[in-house]
């Protein structure tokens, strides 16, 4: 039952990532064609464009949601692949704990970065 629930979250997270990462990819890598997300003649990674996105509450919230969904989707997928190698019960438990700690840690780091950037951008 637990695995079924986690798999449902895995697929659901994938669909959320499809929307938010699709938007992120459009902003970062397709804007040369679209021309709507960044200043004309500039790149998405230019500091001015980074500040524009950082001071937006929409981008801060969607970055955090995307971060959480992508970390869960990726690390759970990695866990599934590793578990197919049929490790022992102790190693399975250890892997689950390790991946959870890594995921939560990186989520904390990324959320702090999004919040700190939001605050910094608002002062500029």
């Amino acid at each position, binding site marked *: 039952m637990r695995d079924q629930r986690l798999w449902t979250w895995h*697929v659901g997270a994938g*669909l959320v990532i499809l929307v938010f990462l699709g938007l992120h990819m459009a902003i970062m*890598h397709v804007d040369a064609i679209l021309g709507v997300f960044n200043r004309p003649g500039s790149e998405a990674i230019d*500091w001015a464009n980074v500040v524009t996105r950082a001071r937006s509450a929409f981008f801060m919230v969607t970055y955090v949601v995307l971060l959480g969904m*992508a970390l869960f989707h*990726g690390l759970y997928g*990695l866990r599934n692949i590793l578990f197919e190698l049929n490790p022992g019960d102790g190693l399975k438990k250890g892997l689950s704990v390790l991946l959870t700690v890594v995921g939560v840690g990186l989520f904390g780091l*990324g959320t702090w*970065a999004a919040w700190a950037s939001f605050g910094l951008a608002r002062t500029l």
Partner: protein
Amino acid sequence: MLQNKGRPNRLGVAGWLGGGSWGVERYLYTLHRVTGLGLLAYFLMHIGVTTSRAFGPETWERAMGAVSGPLFKVGEYLVFLAFAFHAVNGVRLALVELGIGIGKPIEPVYPYRTSVDVQRPLAIGVMILAAVIAALGGVQFLESFR
């Protein structure tokens, strides 16, 4: 390909490359996993690099300068390709898991259509969509080399 003729599976990791009479969809699933691992590895580094924006413009410019070489740009496009494939193939896998696009079970009276006949056009359509997305992303990447 090695066929399992009742003997114990001793293919080991080599079995990941081809464990029997695999169809196109099985190789797409394998590529889905490979691109997923690549995207995960890139994502973990990406979190670290983009955290630099929280420390101000100098730190950000230094981080971007470190990842702006031609090799990094090619690697970034490979990540985009992996995203294009993984995303659209993931949608296909989700649809197939929900039973959409694989046809209804019918009595196996020859000549009959199998689920492969039904889901193969879905797989082909998904690959065409991935190629279109890859081409759209390729325009900006080519411009970045000018």
